[in-house]
């Protein structure tokens, strides 16, 4: 049913993502699909990486590690943008088209009143992505 599952990851907060990572791996095994891990970062040094090349290496390492642990096919797709705090939604939507994913599995926080004026990343992706989206609550 699904061939390619896109899973956005925040390398700085892997602890919060364990559930989403597990779900995407389980689905990948079930449907025999590939998981592509997408990470969004700025070109400026961040807590995760000092530069885009280092970021790519870390994301690839994560993809390889998941492949070994779960016995699935994986790849990594680092996306650079100018203002990650703001642009992350658009960057992920673009990545969902560019990677050709037919399912997005992503983690999201618990909804709160603030979501009415300030939609969550997961909410926005689910609303605008062309493919199926599964939002995993943390």
């Amino acid at each position, binding site marked *: 049913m699904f061939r390619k599952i896109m899973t956005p990851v925040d390398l700085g907060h892997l602890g919060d993502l364990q559930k989403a990572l597990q779900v995407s791996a389980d689905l990948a095994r079930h449907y025999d699909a590939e998981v592509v891990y997408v990470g969004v970062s700025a070109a400026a*040094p961040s807590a995760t990486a000092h530069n885009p090349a280092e970021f790519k290496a870390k994301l690839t390492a994560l993809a390889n590690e998941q492949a070994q642990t779960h016995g699935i096919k994986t790849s990594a797709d680092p996306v650079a943008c*100018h203002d990650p705090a703001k642009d992350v939604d658009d960057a992920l939507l673009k990545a969902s088209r560019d990677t050709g994913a037919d399912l997005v599995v992503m983690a999201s926080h618990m909804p709160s009143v603030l979501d009415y004026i300030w939609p969550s990343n997961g909410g926005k992706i689910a609303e605008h992505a062309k493919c199926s989206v599964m939002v995993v609550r943390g």
Partner: protein
Amino acid sequence: MAEETTNQGIPEPEGHSDLIETDYEIGQDNIEAKIGPFGLDIHNPVFLISGLSVVLFVFYSLALPEQAASAFETAKSYVITTFDFFFLSAANIFVLFCLLLIVTPYGSVRLGGADAKPDYGYIGWFAMLFAAGMGIGLLFFGVSEPMSHFSSSLAGTSVGEGGVRTDWAPAGAAGGDEAAAQRLGMAATIFHWGLHPWAIYAVVALALALFSYNKGLPLTLRSAFYPIFGDRVWGWTGHIIDTLAVFATLFGLATSLGFGAEQAASGLTFLFGSGDAAEGTRSFLGITYGNSDESGVANNPALLVLLITGITAIALVSVVRGLDGGVKVLSEINMGLAALLLLFVFFVGGPIFLITLFFDSLAAYFQNIFALSNPFGREDVNFSQGWTSFYWAWWISWSPFVGMFIARVSRGRTVREFVICVLLIPTLVCVLWMTVFGGTALNQVVAEGYEGAKNAALELKLFYMLSQLPLATITSVVGIILVVVFFVTSSDSGSLVIDTITAGGKVDAPVSQRVFWCVFEGAVAIVLLIGGGLASLQAAVIATGLPFTLVLLLMCFAIWKGLVSERRA
């Protein structure tokens, strides 16, 4: 989290660059928390100290207004009169240093590693660095400054007791000679808006870009000092540098916001107000408002508070929309409008006259640059201290903000390209702007005998000049829109910069933090405006120019050291 980032070697960045190995992890001193629904990721203690010290300073200037005013004013005049030689020499060094970078082989080092691609195209990049750097000043001073120097030069020199000159004319003045006074006036104005201020910005921006994009250090001021202080920059040395930068940026923006609102309010009541200025009944939107020297009506803060709230609201939308969707778009709109206004004044002001004046002013600038920039044994003390030294301290106190912002958008350029675009092109644009606006106004005085702009209050000079040209209503409205939008573009980029510094160099801190700084800035401006204290806090900001000058000189050294270890393309 830190444990995710350690234990992995640092691979090559994009092509060769020389990473600095340090045990410091970006964000290691940060506090991450959740207050209600708002996420928080702030540097400890920079966020807290700078926030608190801003509040304390505001309290001080409101609780003891006279004492605060005299303390800050004394500090400012002491700094600009005692250290005038220091400011002038330092600014000369920055210009020479930048010119040197263009011609040395280090000019081919690329920011972001040898294979990095530029983040922005030329137009967006240039619009952003210009709108943050000096956009607003051009509207204030484009007409008024050439006029001031022209008038003081024309009046000639006068000597007071003890043989000290009491006039404010630049260099040797040009008593009674209108043509010479005009040239000197243009040269002095261009001197204050040309190579020197842009060299100041370029040094700070280059240092930050180099140490962040090539060396992998966080995008915050302290990183530029790594070659000098080593790992101590992650301790209190760095906290102090960063806090000082936040302080200068926030108060610089808040005080400018206050004064900018006054210009916009004056312009609005002048153009669209009802009632009579002479009788003191002029009002706009039913709120009485006058610039006191013309109408005798005291400034009513209500209109100003409305304007600041409006400007802050637009800035808020812009920061929430982010760098590309907000700041860049507004900067481009603004540059487009400014270019239209420039072209309009150029064509109706007399293109042939203005082209001639452009080259003549440029020539006058280079003929006078040595006399005007000479730090020692100046006879024109009022000019060199009251104007030049003041300006240099002002530009320098703004440089952490503008420098950080330019660095943020300049990744992927070579050092040579960077210096040419941050130093030489803005200088030429400033010469053009000053020629068109100042030259047209001067021509009104010299050739047409119209003294309206010459006699008008500072914030109205632009509108009086435009009133003599066709389509005055439309161009004046464009002028007011430009004033407002230039404030928005300073305010939003300033909030981004303060947010990045107080998040320890993280550019991906939660959006709610930049919202906080943007609102805080507007609130400080309103409080100072109502309570009084705009002028005294502006004086405090200018006084911070002194420590920053030292900081900038050290940066030149750090840049050089940093470039030597990079591979040249």
